[in-house]
């Protein structure tokens, strides 16, 4: 479903991603691991069109998408949750969900769109799923950090993408919230392709099938989590990290 071939991006003289071949299949949940600065977020920026690659290709559903704008990759069905929750602060929870719906992005469609019963029900379902149904009229700014993360997941549900990118979805959550988030991701996105960037090993164990490890913008290892944990190269990288820290 998604494949990168020889993907490279340079910032000044620095290669944040170099010569990366990476692919994700339909219906798969892939976890991306890697120490800080490994280029995980940059890879997500490349896939969603926020950053343009210096060279290499990104193929999505048989289509070259390198160089498209974010609103174009979104139209093609790629949805993203940011590392720090990006919600619309001075709008209510339900307004946040509502703008995320797909299919009303043209100016004139947006002007003459009528909120149908069906959409109202879907908004309500989403609010129940993310456990914010009692906060629907509150401003997003007044939510807790964890609630904001969930709200952004709710926006993804409304957007209904085929490929979902979650950049550290549990950052700043308590262990309990993290666990709930893992269950949420497993249940609501189970038929989609999902790429999750994550640090929290307990969380990774909870959700992961196949794990890809990046290091300094390069591919390091890939496989089931148990194998990765035993991988000598991976251990070395993480040990070095620990030594630095």
């Amino acid at each position: 479903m998604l494949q990168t071939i020889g993907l490279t991006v340079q910032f000044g003289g620095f290669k944040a991603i170099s010569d990366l071949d990476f692919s994700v299949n339909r219906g798969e949940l892939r976890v991306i691991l890697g120490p800080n600065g490994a280029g995980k977020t940059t890879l997500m920026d490349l896939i969603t069109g926020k950053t343009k690659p210096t060279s290499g290709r990104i193929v999505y559903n048989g289509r070259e998408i390198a160089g498209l704008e974010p609103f174009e990759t979104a139209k093609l069905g790629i949805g993203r949750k940011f590392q720090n929750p990006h919600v619309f602060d001075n709008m209510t929870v339900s307004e946040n969900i509502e703008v995320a719906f797909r299919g009303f992005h043209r100016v004139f469609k947006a002007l003459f769109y009528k909120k149908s019963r069906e959409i109202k029900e879907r908004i309500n379902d989403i609010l129940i799923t993310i456990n914010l149904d009692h906060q629907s009229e509150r401003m997003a700014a007044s939510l807790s950090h964890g609630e904001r993360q969930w709200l952004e997941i709710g926006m993804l549900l409304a957007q209904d993408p085929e490929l979902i990118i979650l950049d550290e979805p549990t950052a700043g959550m308590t262990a309990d919230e993290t666990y709930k988030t893992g269950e949420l991701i497993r249940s609501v996105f189970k038929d989609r392709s999902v790429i999750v960037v994550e640090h929290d090993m307990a969380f990774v164990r909870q959700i992961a099938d196949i794990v890809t490890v990046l290091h300094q913008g390069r591919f390091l290892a890939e496989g089931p989590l148990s194998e990765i944990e035993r991988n000598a190269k991976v251990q070395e990288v993480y040990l070095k990290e620990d030594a630095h820290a």
Partner: protein
Amino acid sequence: MLLKRLGINETFAALALVFLAVFPMFASEFRVELMGKFIVFILFAFSLNLIWGYTGLLSLGHAVFFGLGGYVLALSYSLQDGVPSFMARFNIEEIPLLMRPLLSTPLALLLGLLIPALLAGLIGYFVFKSRVSGVYFSIITLALAKLFEMLIVNMQAYTGGFNGLMGLPRFPVGGEPMDLVPYYYLVLAVTAAAFLFTRWLTHSHFGKVIKSIREDESRIRFLSYNPANYKIFVFAVSGLLAGLAGMLYVPMNGFISPQDSGIAMSTSLVIWLAIGGRGTLMGPIVGVLIVNWLSNLLSEQYPTLWQLILGGVMVLIVLYLPGGIYGAVESWWKDRGLRKKYAAKEDQEGEAVLYKESEVL
């Protein structure tokens, strides 16, 4: 209670409408004319509110669109009896070809809307498609205001120059100019319609999208929206409303000058909206009425001191009430409503909520 049944915006809007509608029955002609001008300013402030209040893009040259509308109508009036004296003075013997369409009043009215809308759309197209930041938009519109003001002053033969165009009649209907009070009601009706239009627009899905552009433009791009198209459209609509306000202003005021179309007017507008509350439905009304009424009251007694007071109030509001006067009132009201609602809900279904929290996620 009225407030609860109708909602806060609707209640205040209804009160304002009633107040403005009965005003001519009690006030002197002088006051009615003054209030009529304020109503025009309210309409003008609605226009800035769309682009600044709701979309988050501060136009510092909005009076250009106001002036364009105003000058189109004023020129149309001036040309009705042949070559006007300000042109004759420069030995112009025929009405210039470009101004001929203005001889027809309906056409002039249409152009007074379309020219500002098109200019705004065009500026929007170049500024927003190239994705420069909001600050540059403000600077570009500011430069535009300066440019337009200078252009009018310098093209004296065609615009009347620094002194502006004077002695303009109130809306002639069937050859006879309208009386003040009927014209006042016409302006009030148009402004009320513009209020309803703003309300519809901002409550629509479109309204949610422009608000999200204001909140976080880069985020909305990841949800399939192309913000540039939205911004161009809002700016064009805003330009159209400003042009409409300019056209209504001319007959009420009796003259139009470069000062009405440049930086001074643009800045006043920004101040009214900031004090009233940008991004709220009633903010423009509250801001225009309070600032202008106080200004009239105090400027007679303390002409210089008043400017200082206004500046001081402006700074205080920006610092302590970033949502403006009405913004503060509205958010207080909403918070109160929410607190009550949650308190009631918790009483009712406190146990159910607890159960849900452990079950759903």
